[in-house]
């Protein structure tokens, strides 16, 4: 933090001259990249529609309000389906993630050269394909319906849970394992009495967290036909029944807020 002398008084500046120049350069480069990218986007955009969007928005709001409240009763089954997709999907995902996490953690993997990269690859590819794309693929294989959604959510959860879980496994306390080892325990006993109790809190919080995310994801897998409230949303948007769409959106907001509230409660109760 330099103090700069100007004629007869001193002023304080946050950074010295070098750092100031560097900051300026970073801002300059950032702005340059931003404007270049924006230019490329704008050349692919029809600006007439963008400038007209406020009229379009007002028009849409006019159609969405008032919501058609009677429609809510038809939504009960889809929202139940959505909840099930999220819950069962999370369960499947975490169950598959457990062995994968043990295989990919540095300290529990049976072979660092062969199995670990393979398990890591499974985790990364599950993470990098969005659940909607998984659903798109699965609808073609198992047909439209709840099952495709459950599998899609499950497959997507594997990567997330696996990654966080194997990081938790890598951070366990080795002394406890040594203590169990000293009693003459075999590998399986070390696992159940040494490792599992240590990662159990992490495991519960990871699966609750993922369940919360999955409620959100389960609302959209239906857009490609994989069950849940998304199917209704897709159908009503296709019918241009905007008064019904607004009911669906309200239900989604309520479901998400509710799931967030529940997860916060459970987390408090457990930890």
């Amino acid at each position, binding site marked *: 933090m330099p103090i700069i002398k100007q004629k007869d008084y001193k002023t304080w500046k946050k950074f010295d001259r070098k750092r100031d120049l560097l900051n300026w350069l970073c801002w300059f480069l950032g702005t340059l990249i*931003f404007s270049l990218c924006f230019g490329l986007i704008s050349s692919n955009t029809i600006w007439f529609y963008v400038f007209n969007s406020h009229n379009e928005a007002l028009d849409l709001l006019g159609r969405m309000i008032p919501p058609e409240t009677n429609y809510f009763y038809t939504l009960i*089954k889809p929202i139940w389906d959505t909840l*099930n997709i999220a819950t069962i999907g999370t369960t499947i995902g975490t169950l598959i993630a457990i062995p994968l996490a043990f295989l990919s953690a540095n300290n529990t993997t049976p072979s660092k050269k062969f199995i670990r990269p393979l398990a890591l690859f499974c985790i990364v590819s599950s993470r990098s394909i969005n659940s909607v794309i998984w659903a798109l693929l699965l609808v073609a294989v198992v047909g439209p319906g709840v*099952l495709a959604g459950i599998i899609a959510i499950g497959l997507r959860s594997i990567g997330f849970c696996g990654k966080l879980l194997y990081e938790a496994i890598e951070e366990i306390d080795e002394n406890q394992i040594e203590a169990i080892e000293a009693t003459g325990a075999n590998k399986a006993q070390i696992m159940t009495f040494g490792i599992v109790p240590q990662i159990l809190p992490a495991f519960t919080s990871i699966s609750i967290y993922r369940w919360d995310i999955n409620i959100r994801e389960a609302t959209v897998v239906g857009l490609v036909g994989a069950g849940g409230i998304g199917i209704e949303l897709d159908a009503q948007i296709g019918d241009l029944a905007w008064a019904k769409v607004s009911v669906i959106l309200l239900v989604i907001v309520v479901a998400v*807020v509710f799931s967030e509230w529940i997860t916060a409660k459970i987390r408090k109760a457990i930890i």
Partner: protein
Amino acid sequence: MKDKKVIWERKPLIKNKLLRIGLILLISTYLLSVFLTTEIDWQRILEGIPRGKNFIFAFFPPDFITRSDEILAGIFESLWMTIVATIVGIIISIPVSLGAAKNIAPKFVYFFSRGIITLSRSFQEVILAIFFVKLMGFGPFAGMVTLSFSTIGFFAKLLSEDIEEISKSQAEAIKSTGSNWFQWINYGVQPQVMPRFIGLSLYRLDINFRESAVIGIVGGGGIGSTLNKAFDRYEFEIAAAVLIVIISIVMIVEYTSSHLRKLIK
């Protein structure tokens, strides 16, 4: 007495016996009701297995060449979208996150900002994209607006949590020098949350790229529209190529961003 052996038993996970049995009952009734209310068409699945096999085989070999110009254009469009959307989203979420921090904002601003965050977090990018495409027409601009909007919810929520945890004494020290509000934020709060800020920006950049692959499916531009076109034309070899490209770019982005985050820490 002398024959009695002391045997150690593992403690049950939940100490209260009533609660334990209740939970088990609750879970099993839930599973049963799911099983009874979910219509699973086993016939369709049995039919689907050979079809699925053909479908998966149709992906091989991935064809990178035939439409390489389209794939490249899609990827670059996704990249532009991601960069612009992340920057715009972060710039907007700075005031929102200040508003959503209990220790900085007055009550009504707090609830207003929390409302924005909840709204943005409730809807998946795909749903938002449907609406923005409807409002602004097809193309990357709608996708960019979608990504910026969903960045706000994520970024502002996590940043505001960090702002709420700043050390009060540092902020108070700045205040006691007679600084105005902006100076107080700039010198008292901002330096404390900067590491988290950079980490979150990198993380969001990574997420936005991944999401840009999906919003193209509903017309938001980018690599997603290339993927969707390939599916619509039944060109599964090209779809496979696009998927492989997405996975590898995500891997690269994730690897570099986690490396950068470690470097900054």
